[in-house]
């Protein structure tokens, strides 16, 4: 079963975990522990969103910092009637990312090789017993990373949200601020472009293996 946004799990005899909205309210009232709990819960997905969009851990860290600083300063502007805290955070992340990506696009290409200061995400792969399999897998991951980064931003973000973060079309539409139909059509087009790029990078991958 594909995973989507996970809610707090309830178990008999155990205290119920506070919802994001409750943690946010307590945070706004000055509860530092509530802030840390919300950070621990949501920071990884925010960071991964920025990482998968940019391919740069440094960029992702900067964006994550900006987003949570903004949450500390402007968290009172969150309106629960407009969506969830997770979608709110993703929306803030997306807004800041697009701004910085546009600025950096004018200075360098995002499809270039990783710089000395960047670590390829493939390097973080857990090693298996088979070094050859590791190498093949690592190369495959790097192909996909480059192919995703080569997509235009508006196609890239639907691939990242729907195919990498496992968000539903409705959740992605909420984050992107567009209709569900637009998300589906962009994803359709993005996947076709991705297939072309992967073929160009690694040979004909049209035939599924296994």
């Amino acid at each position, binding site marked *: 079963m594909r995973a989507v946004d996970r809610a707090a799990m309830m178990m008999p005899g155990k205290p119920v975990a506070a919802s994001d909205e409750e943690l946010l309210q307590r945070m706004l009232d000055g509860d530092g522990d509530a802030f840390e709990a919300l950070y621990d819960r949501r920071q990884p997905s925010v960071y991964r969103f920025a990482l998968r969009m940019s391919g740069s851990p440094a960029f992702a860290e900067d964006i994550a910092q900006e987003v949570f600083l903004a949450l500390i300063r402007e968290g009172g502007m969150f309106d629960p009637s407009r969506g969830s805290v997770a979608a709110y955070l993703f929306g803030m992340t997306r807004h800041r990312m697009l701004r910085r990506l546009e600025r950096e696009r004018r200075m360098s290409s995002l499809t270039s090789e990783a710089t000395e200061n960047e670590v390829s995400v493939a390097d973080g792969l857990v090693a298996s017993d088979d070094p050859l399999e590791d190498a093949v897998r690592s190369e495959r991951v790097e192909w996909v990373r480059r192919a995703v980064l080569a997509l235009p931003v508006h196609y890239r973000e639907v691939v990242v949200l729907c195919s990498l973060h496992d968000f539903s079309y409705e959740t992605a539409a909420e984050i992107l601020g567009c209709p569900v139909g637009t998300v589906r059509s962009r994803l359709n087009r993005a*996947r076709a472009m991705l297939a072309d790029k992967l073929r160009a990078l690694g040979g004909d991958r049209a035939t599924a293996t296994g």
Partner: protein
Amino acid sequence: MDCREFNRHVQDLADDRLMDVMVRRSALAHAVACRACSALLAGERAVAEDLRIYAEATETASAPPRLKQTLRAAFDAQHSAASASTTASATASAKSASGVLDFPTGDSVALRRQWTRWTLAAAAGFIALLAVGAILATRRDNPIDPRSEMAKAGAVEAIPRPTPSASPASPPSPSSSPSGPSMAPGGPTTAPARKRPRAQLASVRSNASRGSMGDAEETTAFIPLTYMGGGAATDGGLIVRVEVPRTTLLSLGLPLNLERHTSVVKADLLVGDDGIARAIRLVE
């Protein structure tokens, strides 16, 4: 199901997303029967598999622990400042029984800060408007006298207003262009507005009132700096001796001696009654 409809669902099939059971069965049955759609589904599944592997490779990625410490410090600093301001405002409102605005204690720190920013911006704008109004009122009551301003600058001489019988004390340079005013020592003469002429050196002895300036000087004809209509621009004025960089010659259309381009050159500015420079002549 036909190929067109299959196309709409192939992505969900490849990603194994939640689908209507009947639609799923129909799509899979179509893929078995249609070779093209079968290949399409295979291609989509390959892409989905690649993306799944990439997602797994980045699943554990997270920001370094130092970021949490930094943000917690920022959070504590933010709320310490907020507590201090809330305490101060609560004390002030407790001291005054009436006529004091109560700060909304239930509002977030962000809203309070936003209100403060708007207030400061409005106050700054109001002060700026007052300053501009005061300056305009002062200028209207006390128009700037170019003569007094120029007198402060140093070497200034007043040019007498021309009379119909006024004639130049020395003939103008034969090579001087008829465009623009040719400023003979006797005073300015009326000239129609023309484009800027190229200056030509002329040996003209300086005005006797400038005898205190020293040795005889050579000057060019006056080069107009503004488009002057009729005679209004030459009704009196002042001549001010200045020093300008030689590169100024370029802007006047004069050739620049590259060997001496870093030095300054003496010039006379003809300043009208309104304080605007009308013309310039070079002095050597």
